[in-house]
């Protein structure tokens, strides 16, 4: 399940939706939150823009790659867009598997890959009312590269 939405989501509900088949032994989740220190200090909100259509298909493709690489049973990805205040949830990736190693690896892969290949752009709005587009991080590119297979 992949959702791009403006609304918030409930992590408990999302996690329960991943498990409960009796075959699932492990659920790994990641939640990203708006934090006060981004590219600049005193961030009070983010504005998130995306490329409708392409975003969903890029994430679908990442989930397919994860399914080919690890033994996983269910995946849920939620990414919010629009304006999000400090402390709000931005993104959720949850992976269910029989085993914890697969759940952790697939969850971290999906987050790292999403950061560098899904068409989302973040603008930070600071407490002084200024705003600026966030720059892509070299550390994020490195993390994504580490998952590349020979």
């Amino acid at each position: 399940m992949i959702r791009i939405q403006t609304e918030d989501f409930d992590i408990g509900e999302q996690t329960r939706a991943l498990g409960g088949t009796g075959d699932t032994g492990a659920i790994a989740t990641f939640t990203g939150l708006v934090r006060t220190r981004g590219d600049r200090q005193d961030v009070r909100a983010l504005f998130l823009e995306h490329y409708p259509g392409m975003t969903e298909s890029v994430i679908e493709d990442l989930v397919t790659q994860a399914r080919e690489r690890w033994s996983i049973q269910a995946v849920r990805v939620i990414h919010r867009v629009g304006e999000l205040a400090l402390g709000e949830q931005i993104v959720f990736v949850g992976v269910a598997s029989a085993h914890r190693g697969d759940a952790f690896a697939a969850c971290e892969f999906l987050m790292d890959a999403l950061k560098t290949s899904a068409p989302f752009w973040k603008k930070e709005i600071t407490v002084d009312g200024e705003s600026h587009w966030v720059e892509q991080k070299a550390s994020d590119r490195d993390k994504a590269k580490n998952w590349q297979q020979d």
Partner: protein
Amino acid sequence: MSDTVTVKFFARLRETLQTDELELPISTQGTVSDVIESLASRGAPWDVLQGDQPVMIAVNQTMARPTQPLSPGDEVALFPPVTGG
């Protein structure tokens, strides 16, 4: 089918160009590079497309290189490196 492509802009590019989408005629055997050159030749602010900041390209919602040939009706998107998550 029209002999044009749709060009979309996102994030900082959309704001700098004050444009989210336009239609552009393409010549036979045109590529993404031709589209970028044609737009940049309009002068400021369009020259940002050939400036210092990297411009990413998608054609029909798939990442593409500047050398990618275009067909009438294609959707070209130009945007800064992505920063979601």
